[in-house]
C-alpha cells in the first residue's frame, strides 16, 4: 500500500533499508536537481560573449560578436544581425538570450540555402552517452525560444564520427512570446562517438532550409545522414526583415525528462568557453603589461608571449582586432606591418610584431595597449 503521509517522527538510525526502499524506488529525475555539469551544452544561458555583443552583416558560417560557443551556420539565406540580447523570459533567472535579426530577407531560398544556429560538443565529454552500445543513453534538450514568426522549426542532431542523424520538430505557437520547449531523442545504439577532442555531437537549430534539406522524410529516429532528411517542415525565418528569433536556457542532458536549467557561476562559464576561444586584452588605457619579451630585433621584429589559462582544446589560430599599440622602454608604436602568431600551442603562444625601424629599445617585457573592447588578440580553438 502506498504511503500518503510521512510519519512525523524521525526514522531511527539504520531503519530504512532495501525492504523499506527498493532499488530503483527513487527515479533519476528526483535525484538530478543538484548534479553539477549535467548540461552538456556550454554557455546555454548566453552569459559569455568574449568577442563582443553584437555583429551586423552576418551572412556565412562563423563564430562572431555574439555568445560564445554558438556558431552561426548559413549559406545564402539572407543577412543577419546577431547579438547577446537582454530580452529574456520573465521570472526564469536568465540575464541574456541570443538574438537573430533578419536585416536582408531571402523569401525564396535556393535548394542548397539554409540558415541555422548550432553548437558543437567535444567528443571526449560525451563518452557517458555510451553510443554504439545497447546501453546508449537518451538525451533531452530543453530551451526557451521566442519569435514573431510562428510555425514548425527543426532541431537537427548530428554525431560526426558515425555520420548519424536524428531531427525533431517543435512549434512556436504564439508570436513574440517566450515558450519553453522540450525534445527527447533516443540513444543511438548503432552510433559512434570517438574518445578524442574532435566534434562528437552537433545541435543545430534550423531557421530556414532549402529543398535539399526538406524534400525527404524527417529523420525522426537515428539513421545514416543525408541532406534531405534533416529539416523537412522548417519555416523560413529569412523571408522578412521584420523577423527575429531569440533563444536562451539551452540544456542537453542525459535522460528522458528535462530538469531545471543548471545555472553555473559566470567565472565557471567563462573558463569553459576559454577552452575554445580566448580574448587577450586589458581594460586599462595606460601602459598595460602584456607579457614577457622573448626576442628583440632593433630594426625589425619584437616577439612576446602569452600563456593560456585554461589550456586550450588544441593549438589555436591567432588573429587580432583593432590597432594594438606596443611599448617597451619607449613610446607607443603603431603601424606594424605584421602582427602574427608564432609557436602556437594549446598552452602558450607568441605574437610577433614586425616593423622596420620600429624605434623601440630592448627590454624584458612587452606592453600592449589593448585597452578597449575592440582591440584584442584572439586565440581560436573552436570545434
Amino acid at each position, binding site marked *: 500500500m502506498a504511503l500518503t503521509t510521512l510519519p512525523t517522527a524521525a526514522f531511527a538510525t539504520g531503519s530504512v533499508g532495501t525492504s523499506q526502499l527498493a532499488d530503483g524506488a527513487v527515479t533519476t529525475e528526483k535525484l538530478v536537481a543538484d548534479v553539477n555539469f549535467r548540461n552538456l551544452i556550454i554557455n546555454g544561458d548566453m552569459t559569455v560573449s568574449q568577442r563582443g555583443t553584437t555583429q551586423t552583416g552576418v551572412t556565412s558560417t562563423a563564430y562572431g560578436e555574439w555568445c560564445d560557443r554558438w*556558431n552561426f551556420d548559413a549559406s545564402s539565406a539572407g543577412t543577419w544581425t546577431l547579438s547577446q540580447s537582454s530580452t529574456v523570459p520573465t521570472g526564469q533567472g536568465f540575464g541574456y538570450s541570443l538574438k537573430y535579426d533578419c536585416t536582408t530577407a531571402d523569401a525564396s531560398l535556393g535548394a542548397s540555402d539554409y540558415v541555422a544556429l548550432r553548437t558543437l560538443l567535444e567528443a571526449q565529454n560525451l563518452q557517458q552517452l555510451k553510443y554504439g552500445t545497447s546501453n546508449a543513453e537518451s538525451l533531452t534538450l530543453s530551451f526557451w525560444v521566442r519569435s514573431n514568426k510562428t510555425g514548425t522549426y527543426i532541431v537537427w542532431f548530428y554525431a560526426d564520427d558515425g555520420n548519424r542523424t536524428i531531427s525533431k520538430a517543435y512549434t512556436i505557437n504564439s508570436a513574440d512570446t517566450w515558450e519553453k520547449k522540450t525534445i527527447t531523442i533516443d540513444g543511438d545504439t548503432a552510433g559512434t562517438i570517438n574518445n578524442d577532442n574532435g566534434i562528437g555531437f552537433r545541435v543545430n537549430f534550423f531557421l530556414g532550409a532549402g529543398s535539399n534539406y526538406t524534400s525527404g522524410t524527417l529523420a525522426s529516429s537515428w539513421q545514416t545522414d543525408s541532406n534531405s532528411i534533416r529539416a523537412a517542415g522548417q519555416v523560413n525565418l529569412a523571408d522578412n526583415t521584420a523577423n527575429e528569433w531569440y533563444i536562451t536556457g539551452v540544456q542537453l542532458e542525459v535522460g528522458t525528462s528535462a530538469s531545471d536549467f543548471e545555472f553555473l557561476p559566470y567565472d565557471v562559464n567563462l573558463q569553459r568557453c576559454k577552452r575554445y576561444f580566448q580574448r587577450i586584452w586589458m581594460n586599462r588605457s595606460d601602459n598595460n603589461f602584456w607579457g614577457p619579451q622573448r626576442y628583440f*630585433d632593433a630594426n625589425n621584429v619584437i616577439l612576446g608571449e602569452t600563456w593560456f589559462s585554461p589550456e586550450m582544446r588544441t593549438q589555436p*589560430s591567432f588573429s587580432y582586432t583593432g590597432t594594438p599599440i606596443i611599448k617597451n622602454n619607449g613610446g607607443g608604436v603603431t603601424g606594424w606591418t605584421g602582427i*602574427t602568431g*608564432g*609557436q*602556437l600551442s594549446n598552452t602558450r603562444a607568441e605574437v610577433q610584431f614586425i616593423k622596420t625601424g620600429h624605434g623601440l629599445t630592448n627590454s624584458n617585457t612587452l606592453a600592449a595597449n589593448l585597452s578597449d573592447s575592440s582591440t584584442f588578440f584572439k586565440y*581560436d*580553438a*573552436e570545434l
Partner: protein
Amino acid sequence: MINLNKIISVTKNYSVPENIFDSYIVELENENPVHVPLNEANSDYQEILEWVALGNTITDNGGGE
C-alpha cells in the same frame, strides 16, 4: 573560425628567429589575417586543406626573417 569562401591567399610562415616552417598566414576578405598552426585538430587548418583540395595553391616565400 575562418570561412573557406573568404580566403584570399595562404602563405607559409617561418618562426622567428628559428626560421622553421610552423604555421600558415591566411589572408581573408575584410578581416585581419589569421595565423593557423599545422594541426589537424584545428578547424581553420581543416579549412585550409579544403581550400587546397579545391585547386588553390599555398604560397611559400621562404624563411629568413
